[in-house]
């Protein structure tokens, strides 16, 4: 029993390591200009990259797909400078986050990315007062409707598992602001879910 469990754990570990080693070999080839190797990298990682982009921009569809495409084009351009000090998958994930956040900052219309604190306040009051239309929202949709900066902090911390220091650095804010945004985003989210979460 114990031996079987150990073997399973070892197999899981080595499967991940084989995947990482395969990624590294493909990335090395793509860095030298091999588009075929880069297509393999795309096929292996499109789901993960697209997933985090959808969560950060709060939307499926063409916009998220454009950003996914943009992230892979940036990866292609930056690959020759990749030093293989982290896993390829980790590097791609980070690049996807940066691509999505840059787009959120540059968006026009609606609350600006750097100024959505007021919008967060307003929405929080409305929800805590009880907004009947929000009660039936599922979690994913509720997250998607958060203001951009609050959503970014919540997704990076609670979904992707980043630390406040990393989030603050990526978003260009103080660590305290990241914590405050997270606290308020959770409050807002609970309000939108009708206190179910």
């Amino acid at each position, binding site marked *: 029993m114990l031996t079987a469990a150990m*073997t399973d754990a*070892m*197999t899981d570990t*080595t*499967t991940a*390591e*084989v*995947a990482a*080693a*395969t990624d*590294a*070999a*493909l990335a*090395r*080839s793509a*860095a*030298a*200009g*091999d*588009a*075929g*190797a*880069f*297509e*393999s990298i*795309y096929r292996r990682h*499109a*789901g*993960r990259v*697209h*997933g985090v982009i*959808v*969560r950060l921009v709060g939307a*499926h*569809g063409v916009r998220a*797909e454009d950003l*996914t*495409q943009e992230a*892979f*084009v940036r990866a*292609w*351009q*930056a*690959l*020759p*400078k990749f*030093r*293989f000090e982290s896993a390829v998958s980790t590097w791609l994930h980070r690049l996807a986050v940066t691509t999505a956040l840059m787009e959120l900052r540059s968006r026009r219309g609606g609350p600006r990315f750097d100024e959505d604190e007021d919008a967060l306040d307003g929405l929080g009051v409305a929800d805590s007062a009880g907004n009947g239309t929000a009660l039936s929202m599922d*979690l*994913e949709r509720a*997250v998607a409707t958060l203001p951009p900066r609050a959503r970014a902090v*919540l997704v990076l911390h*609670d*979904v*992707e*598992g980043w630390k406040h220091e990393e989030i603050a650095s990526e978003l260009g804010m103080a660590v305290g602001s990241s914590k405050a945004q997270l606290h308020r985003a*959770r409050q807002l*989210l*609970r309000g939108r879910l009708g206190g179910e*979460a």
Partner: protein
Amino acid sequence: MNANNDGAQEHDAQADEQLRWQLRGLRRDLEPQADLWPGIAARIAQAPQQAAASGNARTRRFAPWAMAASVLLAVGVVWQLMPAAPQQAPVGNPMVRQQAVSMALDYERAFARLEQADTHPELHGAFGELDRSAAQILSAIDNDPNATFLLEQLRRTYARRLQLTQRAVMT
């Protein structure tokens, strides 16, 4: 009053914890609805890659010979010390994968150290071909962890890649 505050804080903390668990469940892969590769392929055909960061002058002047020798020694020693893969591994034996990973990591480290120095662009095609072969063999091992013969194939591919890298560094 204080008791009420403590109770509210505890309730908030519990609600936060529950919410975090639910949010963690959102972390999943989402395939794009359309195949984005044709668009990416068209764009990267037009997009130049950034030049690789070159090593500093001191590294280039003194390090290549010493690095090449030490890397060759290190990889050689590691593979002499490693037990040979069994000819007939039992079903589900993870040893083949483990050895493949160890080999890949050893060579990756060797490449990283050697490539701190400049390499010759005319060899990039050959590097690409060997790296692609290594990736294909690793994928095959991932799919069939009992294919011990692939370990030898992987070793030959990496040895050739290392040999070429050393040649590029030394000339």
